[in-house]
């Protein structure tokens, strides 16, 4: 028996771990996956499978390579540094001699030059030897496990499912794979893997689909992810006049049955079920989706009031275009949102405003994924040490209230004069 020392605290919260949190998100997504397969058949299943597999494979290959490089670097000794130091010193002495032009400095340089010429070839030889040893079979050989791979904690699987569910069912499978690989690589892996990423990988990959392949096919079908015209794209063409709910009815828009749209975004009902599960398991911060949804509702409701529209207007905004999906599964990814509670509320409010503004004034009928990426960029600013506070202060509430009122005013003025 051995007595070990550790720093306080010596107790840890039971049942708290990252794997449980990420697994919960995957479980909450299951009803949506089943619904997508029911609605879209084998095509939907293929898209989902491919997007998950592509992301997992990308991460696996990336970490195989990076681990290999790491092993090579570990194998190197300080020979490289020694060579660098020698060169730097020679340069230094030479400069000194040229500047001072004294015999003493010239002598120093010349004596150093002799030892330099003696040492250098030997060092280069050792380096060559070392490189050979490092790239020997042992270090380059394939190892099944690599240490940073995050499949065990469901992080990459969750990203893959979320990404797959945002895709339209008509997308060619090659595009699914390309966007998944590029999205994961550029949004997550090059930043240093799990916990370091600035952008939500799923949102990034989804936006990559829109921007890279949008021109290849008709724009609407890709951005909003629908085979036919969705409620939102109808609204985008004719912002205020048409009562689009007449086409579908509230129940269809809520349950998603028979509604055109991307794989997992149509059924607000099932998304809510997953959200309630996550809230009960405390696996996400419930303030983010609530604030996000409330912001969009308040903005669309105010437009409804000032423009004299019916209640169908906010209802369409709430129930279509993946707002629920984005709010519950994408905007709550803890890695890419601020850490303080007020910060998270500002973040979600920003999401709501940007989403609504893109829907009304932008070229795109859909704004959720763009809003998430744009607000992801502001996270470091919201978390800036000087501003971020853990609790709301009276001053912060006042300023926030003014910003909310201003956002409502600007949107309504814009709707009145701009559309």
């Amino acid at each position, binding site marked *: 028996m051995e007595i070990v020392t*550790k720093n306080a*605290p010596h*107790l840890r919260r039971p049942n*708290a771990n990252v794997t449980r949190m990420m697994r919960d998100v995957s479980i909450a997504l299951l009803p949506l996956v089943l619904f997508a397969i029911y609605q879209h058949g084998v095509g939907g299943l293929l898209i989902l499978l491919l997007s998950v597999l592509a992301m997992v494979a990308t991460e696996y290959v990336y970490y195989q390579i990076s681990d290999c490089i790491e092993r090579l670097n570990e194998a190197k000794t300080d020979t490289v540094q020694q060579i660098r130091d020698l060169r730097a010193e020679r340069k230094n002495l030479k400069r000194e001699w040229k500047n001072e032009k004294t015999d003493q400095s010239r002598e120093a340089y010349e004596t150093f030059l002799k030892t330099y010429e003696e040492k250098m070839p030997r060092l280069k030889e050792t380096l060559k030897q070392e490189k050979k040893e490092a790239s020997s079979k042992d270090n380059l050989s394939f190892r099944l496990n690599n240490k940073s791979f995050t499949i065990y904690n469901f992080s990459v699987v969750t990203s893959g499912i979320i990404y797959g569910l945002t895709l339209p069912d008509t997308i060619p499978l090659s595009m699914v794979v390309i966007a998944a690989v590029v999205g994961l690589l550029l949004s997550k892996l090059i930043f240093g893997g799990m916990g370091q990423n600035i952008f939500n990988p799923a949102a990034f990959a989804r936006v990559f689909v829109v921007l890279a392949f949008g021109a290849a096919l008709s724009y609407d079908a890709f951005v909003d992810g629908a085979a036919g015209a969705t409620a939102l794209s109808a609204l985008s063409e004719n912002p205020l006049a048409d009562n689009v709910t007449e086409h579908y009815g509230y129940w269809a828009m809520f349950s998603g049955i028979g509604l055109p749209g991307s794989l997992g975004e149509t059924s607000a009902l099932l998304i809510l079920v997953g959200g309630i599960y996550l809230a009960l398991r405390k696996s996400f911060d419930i303030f983010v989706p609530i604030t996000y949804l409330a912001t969009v509702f308040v903005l669309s409701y105010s437009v409804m009031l000032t423009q004299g529209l019916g209640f169908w207007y906010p209802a369409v905004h709430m129930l279509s275009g993946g707002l629920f999906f984005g709010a519950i599964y994408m905007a709550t990814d803890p890695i890419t949102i601020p850490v303080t509670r007020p910060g998270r509320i500002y973040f979600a409010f920003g999401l709501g405003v940007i989403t609504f503004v893109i829907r009304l004034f932008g070229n795109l009928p859909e704004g959720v994924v763009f809003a998430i990426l744009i607000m992801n960029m502001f996270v470091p600013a919201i978390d800036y*040490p000087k501003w971020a506070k853990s609790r709301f202060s009276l001053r912060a509430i006042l300023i926030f209230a003014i910003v909310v009122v201003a956002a409502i005013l600007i949107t309504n003025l814009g709707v009145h004069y701009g559309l």
Partner: protein
Amino acid sequence: MITRSRKVSDYKQLTKELPTLRYVDPEYVYINLNTARCKEYTLNAKKGDRVKLGEIIGERKGLFFTQPIYSTVSGHIEDVVEKIDSTGITVECVRIKNDFKDTYHEDITDRPDSVIHNMSKEEIVEIVKEKGIVGLGGSGFPSYVKLDTDKDIHTVVINAVECEPYLSSDYRLIKDQPEDIFRGLTYIMQASGAKRGVIAVKKTKTELIEVLEREIARFNEWNIQIAKLDDYYPQGWENATFEQAIGVKVPVGTLPMDKGILGYNVSTCASIYEAVKHNLPITKRHLTVNGDAVKFPQNIRVRVGTSVRELIKLSDGYSEEADKIEVIIGGPMMGVSVENDDVVVTPTTTSVLVFHSVDHKEEPCVRCGSCVFSCPVDIQPVSIMNAVKRDDTVSLKELEANKCIECGLCAYVCTSKIHVTDYVRKGKQQIG
């Protein structure tokens, strides 16, 4: 997961109903000569000298105070040895061989109540100073300094919250000697001129509240109340206790005395009673031996200076299945993990915990925010951790890392099992 979670399971049911054992007669006692607060000392006794219980054998010198060293047994002085004390540092201890006679020093005489009743503030402060009473909750801060304040004190708060899990020594103290605590409180109120006394306990400890309420009836000429606090960690942190018990917020950086409050730990209160009434220094204290790697957890009333190794032997030793254990002096959230069990019981040792050592697997931080939501002083441990990692002292100052009270809650709640408290501690040191 991602939530404000300040509830820490308390595991007190293991020991709180066990009777207090009396283990007051070790063969040798080791009286620590220097402490973390007092680096220098003088020892007036030499080897072979006979000392009596309660006799002054030396003096510790602190920054702004001196403290007499008392013998806690009667017997013969032996040599000076090195041991570890409750703060985990190595201190020099004088070894005294117990003659098991418990001969009290001539000074140790009871004061009649009539004398105590007429004592002035200065006299009580003098006794507390002379008897070397320090904060027994673990701080070790000399109690007379607080009592000697010239501020207007309106309330005395006795902190009996004991929010650290596993500890039940204060619990047993209140159950065993409630009268001592009330008398101690009346002495403090008399000295400070406070009109109100408040005893703060967790509202989940109903047995204690019963005991205290019974006692209040006997002290009805004093204005003493019981404040029932919520079951949170760290509710026993002085400022948190004051905030909930009497509704006064003490900002970080100011002293409770500025707000007219005087706070004492419940064991300090009991020892003030013993000092004033019996003229006794701190010779015994309640101590919990607990944890999952000790065979027979229990509460012990021990003599100050007992070796912890003996106490663990008394608890049937370490459990055999453990190949790696941690020995912790103090609570599991803030206590010190010592490198061997050659530790002496000092007045501030509240407990000895022995745990199986578990190596938690650290995962990358997912910025879930649990540490930020849970922090009792409203700082952002995760941002401080990142600032420490990139050596950013400017950010550390802006993040107010110096506010940290090192309660350990951020590491406790961490979803990724990262030792966040360690990083914050480092950050605190970096900005001084």
